[in-house]
């Protein structure tokens, strides 16, 4: 049966440049001298380090524990010694550092003891915790913890599970090769996900420029005998691999802003994620390696199975970088970001290391004024008006940019690609987004500060009042007592002018006298003698010493002390 496919708005058709890296199979990478494994590799909370410098770790041993409600564990990618747990340069445009575990491999690559899990007999919550601790995250590039997505929606079951094998970005072929070589195992992962999500049908969307992958997946489906799983060839058009775009193409559902796809009975996962779920559940292996495409300015573009934490230059050296290489880009040419150095580590989000040179990616021509031709709006797969958002982002009018749905922008780069004025539109949108986030953080901080300040004032006010009340109550109590005493004394003294009520001055004096009397009594009571609990012999000794002291004092009184004593 021919499936009806839908279309998403816009999109572009850049040159794919995929062929050179698909000629050779996935190759292993020799162990590097040093692995730098950042602890924060996925969306969500920073995992806390579980190892210390000097510790021996085994491959697959947890080195970072998930912390918080949305966080995912990190594991040692090989066996060796932890040299340091320190901030190290991370693969991020900013060139900032993040807490990383630096491992010196011992060359044995020995696995830790692995626990497998029979997912069919395990309760869903336990299964999700297992996947969290196995560090399984979305390998399509967003690195969202997968366990958080493996929850069926409110209805308790899903209609369609979409598996994303579209891989629309130029140069990148890691998913293509994965499907060609490991379709059977990937399918086992998909079956496990289907079980967790109670999905009726599974659609594996693959762009029609990968006939080998489609054939391999179809063969694997036929071999497994599973019903309701289908590999669907979709038209090649960038960005068909965007989650929302792929869902649109396969099911016709458009997920609105601020809603989750599960509310519409759809969930989307990358093929690489499916494979790592297979590895975690059936082999017990946590996510310690991934397939990475090395392409661009290299002699032999190829896909490699890379341990997480391998320095990028170690990896690229295998593919033979050309002499004029001046940059590495993580990801593809459309959405990738430039790396701050050559030795940054490969992380879970690294699907491709694109090696760049001035010849391959010449600097963009100078930006010309926007002529409002509307080409960007025609190309936008999110149905936005980039020229309007550009206008407001450029003038830093962020509120207006948000009104034009800036946050629905998926930063795919189609608008910059088609812009006849060569405006780096996505750069403006990224700038605006991070400015807006910063402002929101500031506003939150200000609101907290305001609340805390108001509470402090309130508290001080309350404390003052409580203190005053306490004092007043005490004064009243004492006054009463004194009045009671006064009522007795004047009669006894027989003073002629005994007033029924003491005048203000008298009352005050009486209070002071009462306080002084109390202090005297307290002083008398608190005679310091800490010998009451001593044994009888010691008490006798103390008494003897006291007696001697007394007699000595009498003696000195009788004879004045010698000068200089």
């Amino acid at each position, binding site marked *: 049966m021919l499936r009806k496919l839908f279309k998403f708005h816009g999109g572009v058709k850049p040159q794919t440049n995929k062929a050179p890296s698909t000629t050779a199979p996935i190759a292993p990478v020799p162990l590097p001298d040093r692995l730098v494994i950042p602890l*924060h590799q996925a969306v969500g909370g920073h995992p806390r380090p579980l190892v210390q410098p000097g510790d021996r770790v085994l491959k697959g041993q947890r080195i970072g524990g998930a912390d918080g409600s949305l966080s995912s564990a990190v594991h040692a990618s090989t066996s060796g010694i932890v040299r340091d747990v320190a901030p190290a340069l*991370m693969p*991020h*445009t*900013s060139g*900032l550092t*993040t807490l990383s575990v630096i491992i010196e491999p011992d060359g044995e690559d020995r696995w830790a003891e692995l626990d497998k899990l029979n997912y069919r007999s395990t309760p869903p919550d336990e299964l999700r915790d297992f996947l969290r601790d196995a560090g399984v995250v979305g390998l399509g590039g967003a690195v969202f913890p997968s366990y958080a997505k493996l929850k069926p929606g409110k209805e308790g079951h899903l209609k369609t599970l979409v598996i994303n094998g579209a891989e629309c970005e130029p140069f990148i072929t890691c998913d293509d090769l994965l499907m060609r070589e490991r379709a059977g195992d990937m399918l086992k992962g998909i079956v496990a996900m289907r079980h967790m999500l109670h999905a009726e049908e599974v659609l594996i969307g693959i762009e029609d420029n990968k006939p080998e992958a489609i054939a391999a997946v179809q063969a694997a489906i036929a071999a497994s005998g599973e019903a309701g799983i289908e590999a669907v060839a979709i038209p090649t058009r960038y960005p068909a691999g965007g989650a929302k775009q792929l869902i649109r193409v396969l099911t016709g559902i458009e997920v609105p802003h601020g809603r989750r796809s599960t509310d519409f009975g759809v969930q989307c996962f990358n093929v690489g994620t499916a494979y790592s779920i297979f590895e975690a559940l059936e082999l017990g292996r946590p996510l310690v390696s991934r397939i990475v495409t090395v392409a661009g300015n290299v002699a032999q573009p190829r896909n490699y199975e890379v341990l997480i934490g391998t320095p990028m230059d170690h990896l690229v050296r295998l593919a033979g970088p050309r002499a004029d290489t001046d940059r590495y880009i993580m990801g593809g040419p459309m959405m990738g970001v430039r790396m701050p150095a050559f030795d940054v580590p490969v992380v879970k989000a690294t699907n491709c290391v694109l090696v760049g040179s001035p010849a391959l990616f010449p*600097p963009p021509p*100078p*930006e010309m004024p926007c002529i409002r031709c509307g080409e960007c709006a025609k190309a936008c797969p999110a149905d936005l008006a980039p020229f309007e958002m550009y206008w407001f982002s450029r003038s830093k009018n962020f509120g207006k940019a948000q009104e034009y749905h800036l946050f629905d922008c998926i930063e795919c780069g189609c608008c910059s690609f088609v812009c006849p004025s060569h405006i*780096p539109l996505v*750069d*403006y949108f*990224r*700038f605006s*987004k*991070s*400015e807006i*986030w*910063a402002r929101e*953080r*500031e506003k939150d*901080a*200000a*609101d*907290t*500060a*305001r609340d*805390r*300040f108001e*509470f*402090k*004032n309130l508290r001080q006010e309350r404390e003052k009042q409580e203190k005053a009340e306490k004092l007043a109550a005490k004064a009243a109590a004492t006054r009463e007592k004194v009045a009671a005493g006064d009522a007795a004394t004047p009669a006894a003294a027989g003073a002629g002018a005994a007033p029924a009520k003491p005048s203000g001055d008298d009352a005050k004096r009486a209070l002071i006298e009462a306080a002084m009397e109390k202090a005297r009594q307290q002083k008398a009571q608190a005679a310091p003698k800490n010998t009451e609990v001593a044994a009888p012999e010691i008490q006798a000794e103390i008494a003897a010493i006291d007696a001697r002291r007394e007699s000595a004092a009498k003696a000195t009184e009788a004879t004045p002390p010698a000068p200089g004593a």
Partner: protein
Amino acid sequence: MLTALLVMASIAVVLGALLGFASIKFKVEGDPLVDQIDAILPQTQCGQCGFPGCRPYATAIAGGEAEINQCPPGGEEGIRKLADLLGREFKPLSEEHGVEKPKSVAIIDEQTCIGCTLCIQACPVDAIVGAAKQMHTIVAADCTGCELCLAPCPVDCISMQPIAETVDTWKWRYPVIEIKAAA
């Protein structure tokens, strides 16, 4: 003549009653302008403006008793926003109230701290924990960087540290386009 007067008078009575009713029904508690100004102020509660906190300063601005350029932590952007809101002219930050500094947090040198609690009392947002003769420490997440704890410290063990940029707070830069001279 009389009818006309009566008609006019009754209209006046009806409209007056309506207005009176509306003023009770739709009464606004407090001054909304003060809230709007307060929302723009950074809530550092540092008192550099000469008022005991951000809200008193907002009240003073709304009452026309204070200038809009007395808030160093709000900086130039804050002044611009206030100028926009109030329709006043933008003015550079007044120097007598201080200078704009990068956002910082206070750090207590825990070796030197004698546990006198003076800084705890000075902190406007209760961001310092500790007790008498116990070491004090600052809850960095709640510290507004107001510097009010610096002066009361008898052993000068509090210092201000600028907040370092992390990946979570890093921002994409404004795109800058190289302009090349025509060959």
